[in-house]
């Protein structure tokens, strides 16, 4: 019985392959996007875990204040004074394949033993690591950069671009991508550093007295890449979830249709003696089979999608957060199960409603499609109630979130966005039904229009889901594109702020004065803007009215030159007593802080800060807050002259501001001519044109959001497919409904036109609703999600052109989706219409 019943149920798809295709398509798209993004996340997480397992993350480190390498003598001196420091040598080499690889040279004997250097091992392995010909430890996925296959890897000695050969290779899977670990002696030879080191590391807390010339960076100030990039991955996940939901909308629509058209069959089977429970079980089995096939297809193409997107993602994460991510996928086993689970879970959520209704209908009730559809009115009421409740919940969440301290509530923020989208989607069908009923009353005098409206009302139960999917996709599209657009404007502003001068230069410390004086004497140069930076600990925040708060927060201190040019380009969000007064106070030694620090610590202009410095604690008054794009850390800005004096940080770079109309090239040439010929390195080779930096930065920015845009466009595509699939799946039935009109004397082209305007009208209404929803979404993204994720608020920008385009796309998508069924109607020969007329 079971086999026959199952075969009978499935025979439906043999006669309606379109519905099967639509089901598989929905499942496929949903799970492909979802599993693609999860593949990217899993892969990136694997890279972070490997980076974090590397000891350099958990150790305090000492570097020279002037950035020069540390000498062997300094190291020996420190060791003699009893400090347990260990030398590190870091550098870059280029492989013969042209890939840049990080070299990390260590001294395993002095490295703190609890720092997790398990890879060197002990005894014989340690001897092999430390003695010629040494070893190169690397992760298997780094082999590709060296042009090697895994089976040829062991003990190979690949040649580098500069002709040198690496020590024999040994595979160590838990190393970060593109990192070569070796003994410090081998690294020194490869990098030709003549025995100098880049850093000295020690167990956290080991070093208390830092020698004058050295800078201590505690391990605690290093934020792990996993933490930093969390919000990025959350964003990706949210977009993938959106695609999953839209995909499931298609699935639900397809399932509903496939079941509705099989109601007669279900009734017949039950009348012939198949128990209702068995039928529901069989339908669930059918779902499972379809789900399995769709998920499998989806996961395979998801992996493919991830492979295509990963290089961009890796570049983004590298440029935004400096986090290294392998450009090759590495997927743990639970990834595959997870993908399958999510797809099947989603399918069951989409399917249970349908199954439950099928199971509840009595045998005799099954035959009546009306009984099936009569539920729609009740559904509309439930939808409006659920939608209103969802809206209220979103409002509550919003109120709660505005009270939350910054940097918290990211998940709740996404919850808010989800709630907002769902609530609006739920309200859409009741709203459409209401509008249609109203319009139909208005159109009493025009029979054809009235028919079209009434007919659209009848189609609503089926169209509702596709329209909901369209609404979600459209508003998400609007929201995300406004956010990215706003991001872009803010970013360009920020670039202007940070790159106010025409040319930038990082002179060698001993030549700094000379170059600066020489530049100021040039007629083309209006002013120079020296900058410098230091690390400090924020010890205390003293509010203008209130008691002091003790803190230990690592912040960066940035030195700026508040010259005329910089003042014009440096935006201030909030000042104590106006812009000009703020700049005067800066020159006099007060400070600005970035928005991140202001929001995170609740510091306002007028408060005073106590900062640690090599010359003893420094107290500064905050006179203003400035926006700081994409910086994860708190920053305090001072005049460079003050920073040099009070934080013992020499100027590190020099901005060169030219008079209007001055020739950039001639200044560049003169500078290189004058200083470039010196024996010693003066640093003029670091001269860069601001334009060039901006171009590179903008390129990186575009890459950052290319994935967001791609996923977003895909979601809209999926929604279009949902609409098309829904229309195609019922086109045969539609023709049957149109046939009587044709028989009554309405021409086929007229009918086609009616159909087209029905759908475009519905899509237009949906798109118009998507506009305010999209704006609300943008507001959530910039003022809730962004603050929670990055600690700073993005100004709300709206782009009317973009909005118009989205509305246009929606109508276009609907027209396109309607066109196919309409064409098929238009091409149906009258004879066939007649036979369908008789069949009614």
């Amino acid at each position, binding site marked *: 019985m079971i086999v026959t019943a199952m075969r009978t149920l499935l*025979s439906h798809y043999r006669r309606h392959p379109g519905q099967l295709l639509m089901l598989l398509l929905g499942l496929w798209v949903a799970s492909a996007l979802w599993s693609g993004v999860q593949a990217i996340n899993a892969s990136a997480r694997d890279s972070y875990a490997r980076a974090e397992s590397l000891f350099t993350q958990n150790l305090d480190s000492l570097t020279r204040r002037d950035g020069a390498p540390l000498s062997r003598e300094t190291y020996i001196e420190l060791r003699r004074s009893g400090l347990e420091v260990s030398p590190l040598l870091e550098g870059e080499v280029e492989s013969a394949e042209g890939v840049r690889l990080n070299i990390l040279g260590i001294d395993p004997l002095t490295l703190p033993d609890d720092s997790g250097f398990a890879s060197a091992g002990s005894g014989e392995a340690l001897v092999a690591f430390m003695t010629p010909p040494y070893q190169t430890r690397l992760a298997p996925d780094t082999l590709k950069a060296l042009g090697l296959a895994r089976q040829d890897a062991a003990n190979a000695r690949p040649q580098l671009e500069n002709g040198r050969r690496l020590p024999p290779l040994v595979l160590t899977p838990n190393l970060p991508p593109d990192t070569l670990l070796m003994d410090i002696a081998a690294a020194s030879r490869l990098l030709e550093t003549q025995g100098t080191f880049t850093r000295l590391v020690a167990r956290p807390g080991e070093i208390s007295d830092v020698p004058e010339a050295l800078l201590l960076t505690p391990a605690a100030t290093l934020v792990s890449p996993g933490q930093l990039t969390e919000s990025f991955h959350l964003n990706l996940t949210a977009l993938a979830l959106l695609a999953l939901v839209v995909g499931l909308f298609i699935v639900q629509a397809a399932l509903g249709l496939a079941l509705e058209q099989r109601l007669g069959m279900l009734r017949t089977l039950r009348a012939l003696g198949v128990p209702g429970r068995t039928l529901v079980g069989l339908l669930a089995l059918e779902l499972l089979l379809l789900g399995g096939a769709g998920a499998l297809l989806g996961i395979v193409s998801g992996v493919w999608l991830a492979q295509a997107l990963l290089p961009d993602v890796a570049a983004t994460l590298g440029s935004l957060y400096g986090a290294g991510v392998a450009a090759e996928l590495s997927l743990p086993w639970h990834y595959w199960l997870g993908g399958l689970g999510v797809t099947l879970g989603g399918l069951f959520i989409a399917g249970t409603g349908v199954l439950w209704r099928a199971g509840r209908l009595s*045998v005799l009730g099954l035959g009546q499609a009306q009984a099936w559809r009569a539920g729609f009115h009740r559904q509309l009421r439930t939808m409006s109630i659920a939608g209103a409740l969802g809206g209220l919940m979103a409002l509550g969440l919003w109120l709660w979130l505005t009270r939350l301290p910054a940097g918290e509530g990211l998940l709740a923020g996404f919850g808010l966005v989800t709630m907002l989208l769902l609530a609006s989607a739920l309200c859409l069908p009741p709203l459409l039904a209401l509008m249609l009923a109203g319009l139909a009353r208005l159109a009493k005098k025009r029979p054809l229009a009235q028919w079209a409206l009434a007919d659209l009302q009848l189609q609503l139960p089926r169209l509702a889901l596709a329209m909901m999917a369209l609404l979600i996709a459209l508003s998400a599209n609007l929201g995300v594109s406004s956010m990215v657009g706003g991001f872009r404007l803010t970013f360009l502003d920020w670039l202007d702020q940070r790159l106010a001068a025409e040319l930038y230069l990082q002179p060698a410390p001993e030549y700094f004065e000379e170059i600066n004086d020489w530049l100021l004497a040039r007629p083309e140069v209006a002013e120079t803007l020296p900058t410098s930076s230091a690390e400090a600990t924020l010890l205390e925040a003293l509010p203008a009215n209130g008691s002091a708060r003790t803190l230990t927060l690592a912040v960066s201190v940035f030195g700026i030159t508040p010259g005329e040019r910089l003042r014009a380009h440096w935006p201030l969000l909030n000042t104590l007593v106006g812009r000009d007064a703020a700049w005067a106070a800066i020159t006099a030694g007060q400070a600005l802080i970035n928005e991140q620090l202001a929001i995170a610590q609740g510091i306002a202009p007028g408060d005073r800060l106590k900062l640690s410095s090599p010359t003893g604690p420094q107290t500064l008054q905050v006179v203003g807050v400035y926006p700081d794009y994409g910086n994860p850390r708190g920053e305090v800005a001072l005049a460079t002259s003050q920073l040099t004096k009070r934080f013992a940080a020499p100027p590190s770079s020099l901005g060169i501001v030219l008079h209007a109309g001055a020739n950039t090239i001639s200044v560049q040439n003169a500078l290189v001519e004058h200083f470039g010929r010196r024996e010693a390195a003066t640093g003029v080779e670091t001269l860069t044109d601001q334009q060039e930096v901006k171009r590179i930065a903008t390129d990186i920015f575009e890459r950052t959001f290319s994935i967001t845009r791609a996923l977003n466009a895909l979601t809209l595509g999926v929604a279009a497919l949902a609409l098309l699939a829904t229309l195609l799946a019922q086109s045969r039935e539609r023709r049957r409904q149109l046939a009587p009109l044709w028989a009554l004397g309405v021409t086929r082209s007229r009918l086609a036109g009616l159909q087209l305007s029905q759908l475009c009208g519905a899509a237009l209404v949906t798109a118009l609703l998507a506009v305010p929803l999209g704006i609300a979404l943008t507001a959530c993204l910039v003022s809730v999600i962004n603050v929670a994720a990055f600690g700073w608020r993005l100004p709300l920008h709206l782009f009317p052109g973009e909005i118009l385009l989205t509305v246009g796309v929606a109508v276009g998508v609907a027209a396109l989706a309607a066109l196919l069924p309409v064409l098929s109607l238009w091409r149906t020969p009258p004879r066939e219409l007649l036979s369908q007329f008789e069949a009614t």
Partner: protein
Amino acid sequence: MLKFHQVHKAYTTPQGPLRVLDGVDMDLEKGQSLALMGESGSGKSTLLHLAAGLDLPDAGKITFQGISIATLDEPGRARLRRQSLGLVFQQFHLVPSLNASDNLRLQARLAGRENPSWTRHLVERLGLTGLERRYPEQLSGGQQQRLAIGRALAPRPALLLADEPTGNLDETSAKDVLTLMLELVQESGSALLLVTHSPQVAAPLDRCLKLTRGHLAEPTA
């Protein structure tokens, strides 16, 4: 074999309860054929649905082969239909996605009692030879009707319930189909409960009862 004892059935309508069956008594013996007549809307289909266990009476008792249908749960009633009943509906209810051959064998397969020689015999006798590959929508009304009869008889059910099986046919085809059905019922040894409003159709059957105002009675003329 099939017994109705004081069966009551009412439907709830917006105008209040509609009492369709109001104390129906009926008895059908093994191998016997009974015609059920009555005006449109008198409750014939309702009675048939109750006999098939598709619906349950409000009061009274229906037994089939000595078992009270009301004591069976839903799967039990489904089993009864699958194993012992054949149903021919007013509107055929063929499965549109199965071809004629699969439709004909559907119930026999569900019951696990497919008998190839009997099926072949049915196809031949019902004049469906050559139409096996067609789908229901590609058959004429009479062909669909014969296919529905074939589907019900293929598992050789103990009882065949037929609801105006000839209602959609012209007079001559109706007569042909009916004669054929009676012959086949005889061949398969089934009992028959046939709903019709035509005295001509009722005439060749063993007995005839008429449903009026919720009660069954011998037809007056």
